[in-house]
């Protein structure tokens, strides 16, 4: 039966995409009109439309996946990005390992969020719900048009070739296979915050309930962004061959800016919810956070700022995304300018209070995001306006960005323990004294032990310890100091907060430790030779050629030993992917709690020896362990019954009392 359904499925996938485009147009226009005129029937269109749109895109995505899985080389996209000998997991990840497919994944997630808003939005006032779904659909319309007019994934080839040209080998990696979906869940998740913000502006009303609704979406987006960024950084660490974990590359910055703003938005939405203040700022943040997601898409897709990661870039597509960006940001900001005045703050608080601490948090996060933004676009600006061709690289970002994170780490434990409305610094600080003393002592100890090296390590250790012990103190205080058994009965949101804040501390410590204490060794090694690096004895036992499924590998067999006893067998590889004509390096890493030993094999030298690079990477795992903690903290908070996104759905039947019909 293989012959007839296969082409059918592709055409049906294309057709479903066109239908989804039409449904999204209906879902944009009808509920907006309905909400304006108070016509319940028109407003009610939004929900089934959101479901239909999601199902259609899901079908379309499944059709494309099917073409990749079955290696249908009559599809241009499959030919360009797949190969019949590729392992199955990379056939699937190949679907989004290219421009067209990744945009299809983008709209799939966009439609998924829209559908989820329809499923779980039962407790929203009807007009707000209709408007949120309509705004969400309008974003879909733009991106459907983008895909259908500039980046159609379903293009056929008149003469299908025998086999495909393979996916970029760098992308054939488990870490990177799932990096884009998580990143997109984050990017696109921020569209919900945007839709809520614009809908609230149209409604002319932002209150505590709005803050409560928008927070779980933002939190979910932030968690996914955290995971996506961490996966990407981990991938760079083990794949690119010298153990860098962050390069301040435009594309990395593109994902980091929304992350910073989403973190700020999370915190300011708390103030809206609990204290009915910071309303117009929170709305602005919600708009900007999604704006930076769009800017990120623009940066990656247009190739305006060249970078390591950008596949497929094309000026026409760049212009299209710029138009989308201009339309949504311009429209939302104009609406904001017209309406922001009506949102007056209600909560009263003093200069020292939880509220003001959260204002400081927002200032630091937003300004640090601004610094990253300026650094990222400066080469472009300098060339366009000042006729200077220059680079802005890691040294700039390390210098200009780090102080903000240090300041954030310093105030965080204090701010998170401040009471609302009015606080006294002395009183808040008193329970934190033990945490502070321990942190200072640890920092000082390390400072004394290392001589003549940078202050980065001790400062990082101090901040990390201060954050972790501060978070513990906070949790303990919440039990009323009355014993550990009550710890488990604390709300999950309290745990989530403590875990996420500790995670930030762990990551800061890891970054500082790795940057301050890394050691490196490069040498030519003969087979059978033993050499010593940073207290480890390494032996190059053998080098062999090994045939992989779709690559050929030069594999080193290295024995890692310490004090005469063997710790690990390491297999650094140099691979060549003949189809894509690309070499990659596969570092061999011995992961341990306090350090990684990172071995890379290079070329054979004229004397028959092999180039071996060895790095000692202290605390490397802490960077991603901290990220995982941050994500876990987010999940814990999300699962708190008070914030559960799903909570409203079960009660959908019960009409909410006291909601003004307006």
């Amino acid at each position, binding site marked *: 039966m293989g012959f007839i359904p296969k082409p059918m499925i592709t055409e049906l996938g294309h057709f479903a995409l066109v239908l989804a485009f039409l449904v999204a147009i209906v879902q944009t226009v009808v509920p907006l009109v309905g909400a304006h005129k108070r016509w319940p029937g028109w407003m009610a269109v939004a929900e089934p439309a959101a479901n239909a749109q999601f199902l259609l895109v899901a079908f379309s995505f499944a059709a494309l996946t099917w073409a990749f899985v079955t290696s249908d080389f009559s599809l241009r996209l499959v030919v360009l990005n797949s190969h019949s000998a590729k392992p199955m997991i990379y056939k699937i990840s190949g679907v989004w390992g290219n421009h067209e497919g990744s945009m299809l994944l983008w709209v799939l997630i966009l439609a998924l969020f829209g559908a989820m808003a329809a499923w779980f939005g039962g407790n929203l006032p009807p007009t707000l719900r209709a408007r949120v779904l309509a705004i969400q659909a309008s974003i879909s319309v733009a991106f459907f048009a983008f895909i259908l007019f500039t980046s159609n994934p379903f293009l056929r080839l008149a003469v299908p070739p025998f086999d495909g040209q393979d996916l970029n080998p760098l992308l054939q990696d488990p870490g990177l296979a799932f990096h884009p979906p998580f990143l997109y869940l984050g990017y696109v998740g921020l569209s919900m915050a945007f839709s809520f913000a614009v809908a609230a502006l149209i409604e002319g009303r932002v209150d*505590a309930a709005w803050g409560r609704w928008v927070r779980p979406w933002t939190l979910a987006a932030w968690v996914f962004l955290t995971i996506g960024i961490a996966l990407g950084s981990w991938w760079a660490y083990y794949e690119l061959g010298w153990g860098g974990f962050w390069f301040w590359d435009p594309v990395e910055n593109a994902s980091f800016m929304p992350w910073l703003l989403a973190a700020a938005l999370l915190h300011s939405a708390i103030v809206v919810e609990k204290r009915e203040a910071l309303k117009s700022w929170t709305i602005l943040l919600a708009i900007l956070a999604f704006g930076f997601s769009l800017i990120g898409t623009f940066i990656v897709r247009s190739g305006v700022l060249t970078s390591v990661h950008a596949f497929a870039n094309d000026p026409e597509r760049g212009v299209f995304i710029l138009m989308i960006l201009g339309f949504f940001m311009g429209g939302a900001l104009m609406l904001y300018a017209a309406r922001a005045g009506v949102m007056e703050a209600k909560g009263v608080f003093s200069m020292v209070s939880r509220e003001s601490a959260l204002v400081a948090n927002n200032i630091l996060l937003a300004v640090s995001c601004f610094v990253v933004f300026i650094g990222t676009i400066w080469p472009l600006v300098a060339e366009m306006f000042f006729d200077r061709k220059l680079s*802005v690289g890691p040294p700039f970002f390390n210098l200009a960005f780090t102080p*903000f994170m240090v300041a954030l780490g310093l105030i965080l434990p204090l701010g998170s323990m401040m009471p609302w409305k009015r606080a006294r610094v002395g009183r808040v600080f008193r329970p934190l004294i033990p945490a502070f003393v321990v942190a200072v002592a640890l920092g000082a100890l390390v400072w004394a032990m290392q001589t003549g090296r940078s202050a980065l390590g001790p400062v990082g250790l101090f901040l990390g310890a201060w954050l972790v012990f501060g978070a513990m103190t906070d949790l303990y205080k919440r039990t009323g100091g009355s014993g550990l058994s009550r710890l488990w009965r604390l709300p999950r949101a309290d745990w989530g907060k403590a875990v996420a804040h500790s995670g930030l501390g762990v990551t800061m410590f890891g970054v500082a430790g790795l940057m301050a204490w890394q050691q490196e060794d490069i040498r030519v090694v003969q087979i059978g030779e033993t050499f010593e690096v940073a207290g480890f004895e390494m032996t190059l036992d053998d080098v062999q050629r090994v045939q992989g499924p779709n690559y050929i590998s030069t594999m080193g067999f290295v024995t890692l030993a310490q004090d005469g006893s063997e710790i690990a067998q390491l297999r650094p590889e140099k691979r060549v992917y003949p189809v894509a004509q690309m070499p990659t390096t596969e570092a061999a890493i011995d992961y341990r709690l306090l350090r990684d030993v990172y071995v890379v094999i290079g070329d054979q030298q004229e004397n028959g020896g092999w180039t071996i690079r060895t790095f000692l990477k202290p605390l490397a795992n802490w960077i991603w362990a901290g990220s995982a903690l941050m994500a876990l903290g987010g999940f814990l908070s999300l699962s708190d019954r008070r914030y559960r996104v799903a909570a409203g759905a079960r009660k959908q039947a019960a009409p909410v009392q006291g909601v003004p019909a307006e």
Partner: protein
Amino acid sequence: MKRLILILTLLASPVWAVQPDEVLDDPILEERAREVSAGLRCLVCRNESIDESNAGLARDMRLLVRERLVAGDTNEEVVDFVVERYGEYVLLKPTTGGSNWLLWGAGPAMLLIAGGIGVAYTRNRAKAQPAGGEGLSAAEEARLKELMKDQG
């Protein structure tokens, strides 16, 4: 298989970042060389320093840096020499000269502005009269309670 081997032999093997034969005998000089090259951009790469890059040009630049250091230049003199030859594009850390003060000043300036607005806002909030009780109005309080109950 035969075809694969043929392709393999045709493929240019990548040159590696900092080769053993480049390393200077004097460890202090070598450390300075690493420091200088970490701040210089590989011209044919995308956002990589010559210290990290595998490109042939990066190797030439690394050797040039070492040559100048051995000849007795200070780090700054080496950097100036390379900039004179390749333009300021090679600097990963942009200078503070000319229009670049905008780049370096943007963060601190924004912090001052944002801090000023933040303080003004907080002052304003501290002085404001509680509108209709603390925070929520009675109706809204009731509504919020209803919502909480609904979700619990």
